[in-house]
């Protein structure tokens, strides 16, 4: 889930994208779209919302990329701040409309066989249900680390926290999720906890 380029490669592509280079923009999109999608899906729980909101996040990126400064944060941290803000805005809108975001039966799954497909859907549903009980900071750290694939350093910059603080939050979140997953009924045979 980590990006397929090194720091210098990312910097070159981001700089080209900031200058309006279309191929660089397309490259950024291809590399970050799955991560942004997973992050938003982890936060929202609905694949359709995740698709629409991911598109919106990239349009926001397009508007803001000229103002991006390397000295402030890594590009990924900057990008996932935008994604986080989009999630918060969406939740605010849904709250105003009185709409909850129930876990969808149509949660996307990897292209696998029917048995694995069901297992993946159940796994994600269970994790999502468990994650909903976490405090916001823990849920955000888990989403950034496990769904978006950010490093601890990047997560810390995205959340404007120290790395040590992020590690502690991460540890507590995993331990809590483990407890919740242990209490689940064994509906499929891959209980590894």
């Amino acid at each position, binding site marked *: *889930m980590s990006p397929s380029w090194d720091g210098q490669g990312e910097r070159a592509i981001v700089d080209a994208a900031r200058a309006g280079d279309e191929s660089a923009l397309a490259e950024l999109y291809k590399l970050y779209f*799955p991560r942004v999608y997973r992050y938003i899906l982890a936060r929202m729980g609905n694949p359709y919302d995740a698709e629409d909101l991911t598109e919106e996040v990239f349009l926001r990126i397009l508007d803001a990329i000229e103002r991006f400064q390397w000295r402030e944060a890594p590009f990924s941290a900057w990008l996932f701040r935008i994604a986080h803000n989009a999630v918060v805005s969406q939740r605010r809108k849904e709250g105003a409309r009185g709409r909850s975001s129930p876990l969808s039966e149509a949660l996307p799954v990897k292209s696998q066989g029917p048995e694995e497909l069901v297992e993946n859907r159940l796994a*994600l549903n269970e994790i999502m249900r468990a994650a909903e009980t976490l405090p916001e900071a823990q849920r955000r750290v888990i989403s950034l680390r*496990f769904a978006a694939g950010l490093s601890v350093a990047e997560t810390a910059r995205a959340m404007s926290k120290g790395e040590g603080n992020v590690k502690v939050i991460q540890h507590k979140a995993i*331990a809590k999720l483990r407890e919740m997953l242990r209490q689940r009924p064994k509906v499929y045979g891959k209980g590894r906890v």
Partner: protein
Amino acid sequence: MGRAEFEEILEECLSALLEGRRSVEESLSLYPAWRGRLEPLLRAAEEIAAGFDQTPPSRARERGLQRFLEAARTRRRLRKIFSPQPAGISWWRWAPAGLVAVIVIGALAFLSASLMAEDGRRLDEEVSIRPYIPTPEHTAPPGSVQSPLERVQEQVAVLEEAVRQGEMVEVGFLEELEEASGELAESLEDPGEVELVDRMAAVSAASKEYELLQTVQEQSSGFEAWVLEASLAAAENVLEKLGATPEPEPTASPEPTASPTATPSPSPSLTPTAGAEATPTPSPTPAQAE
């Protein structure tokens, strides 16, 4: 072994797991002393990572990419349209255009000032408004056919000059004046059809004619008297047609009881016959002359 140290080891094992560098088993073998605390956390992390490992639908990915690139193109076009000029352009690149602009503005200012000054001069000029006085020169261009009014006006002007000079008035001239006055009277058969200006001019000319003929009559004697009477009657006829019958002079008004020695003078309603009846002198009237 402190908590911070464990946090570091856990993070190192999690990063290796999430990045696919090591499996849970490999990490546990690297840190056998921490196996009891590490294993449940790493197993849970493995399950969480598997649950979040969702691939977005390819159609959503492609649709989003097209919209993203189209939006980028739109923004680039708008930026080209509305972006300010680059700051690096030297001043001398604008100098020719600036110079031309200054010249054009200066020329326009000069032209405007000139026009305003011309207008000022025109405003300062005195404008005289003269009343319209029909004269033979005005109403009878060379070669054109004269109207009766124009002929009368012309002849009255000649008569006036003759009287002023004290010259003799020939009988033929008087006959022409009578004829012109008669024609003028005929043209005034329906005064409503005559323009006001022409009516005024006719009144003026006939009045002048009548006055001058009286003067001539006073100074004449002998054979041309009857010709004068005819001319006076013609002028009077014109004035009657115009509703401007001349007022009789007090001293010349012939009373019915006038003495036989009274000076012959036309009355306001003077007609040749009436004038003859009122005149004890042997001066013939036109009717008598005929």
